[in-house]
């Protein structure tokens, strides 16, 4: 049940993290869900509104999410996930990532940026149905 993503988009989301280093970058993945696989067709860069703590927090403005949802609708796609970077921190979900994750069935892609350079990129699928039973599971990335 991989997350498939074309090479140029994979490179772009990693480059985004290098550009915003030492701050976290964030963005939205549009694509199609073919249960249990997720296929990325477009990525949308988003601004990080957490300017008070941008080195270790991110937040995407709801207005950007709504615009992305409209764009997805027009393209026959869905929001299937999100990405962000962890500057000088492993590409593993943090307690903050988990607490703030509410999009079940979507991928949360994290890229570790080590001293300004993109290192490991991992994807985690948010499974479960409620805040009480949610879980992140590792989700292999297949670059196409």
């Amino acid at each position: 049940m991989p997350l498939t993503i074309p090479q140029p988009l994979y490179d772009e989301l990693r480059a985004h993290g290098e550009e915003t280093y030492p701050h976290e970058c964030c963005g939205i993945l549009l694509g199609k869900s073919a249960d249990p696989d997720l296929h990325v067709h477009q990525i949308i860069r988003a601004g990080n509104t957490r300017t008070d703590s941008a080195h270790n927090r991110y937040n995407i403005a709801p207005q950007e999410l709504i615009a992305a949802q409209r764009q997805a609708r027009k393209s026959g796609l869905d929001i299937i996930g999100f990405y962000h970077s962890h500057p000088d921190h492993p590409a593993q979900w943090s307690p903050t990532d988990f607490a703030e994750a509410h999009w079940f069935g979507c991928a949360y892609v994290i890229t570790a940026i080590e001293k300004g350079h993109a290192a490991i990129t991992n994807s985690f699928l948010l499974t479960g149905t409620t805040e009480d039973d949610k879980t992140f599971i590792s989700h292999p990335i297949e670059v196409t």
Partner: protein
Amino acid sequence: MQIHIPTPLRAYTDKQETVSVSGSTVSEGLAALVAAHPAMQQHLYTPEGKLRSFVNLYLNDDDVRYLPAKEETAVTPTDELTIIPSIAGGSAATGCCR
């Protein structure tokens, strides 16, 4: 009013991306949505009946929380309400800096 459903909640609206509801206010529209799709209740509201903190409601392009009448704002059949869960996180170990 049309209510746009985000990807993770479509499992509870028979996979519908948009649901048409009747109602003269935002809250009446939401009540109609929950009446038609009861499983939405627990995903939108706490057991105490409050809208979950991570659920954002936008009436057309306006955040409902900042409208003068909030959820009692009047709506017309052509209005669009978007339900959009928040997206946030980061490498911080705790919510120390919020």
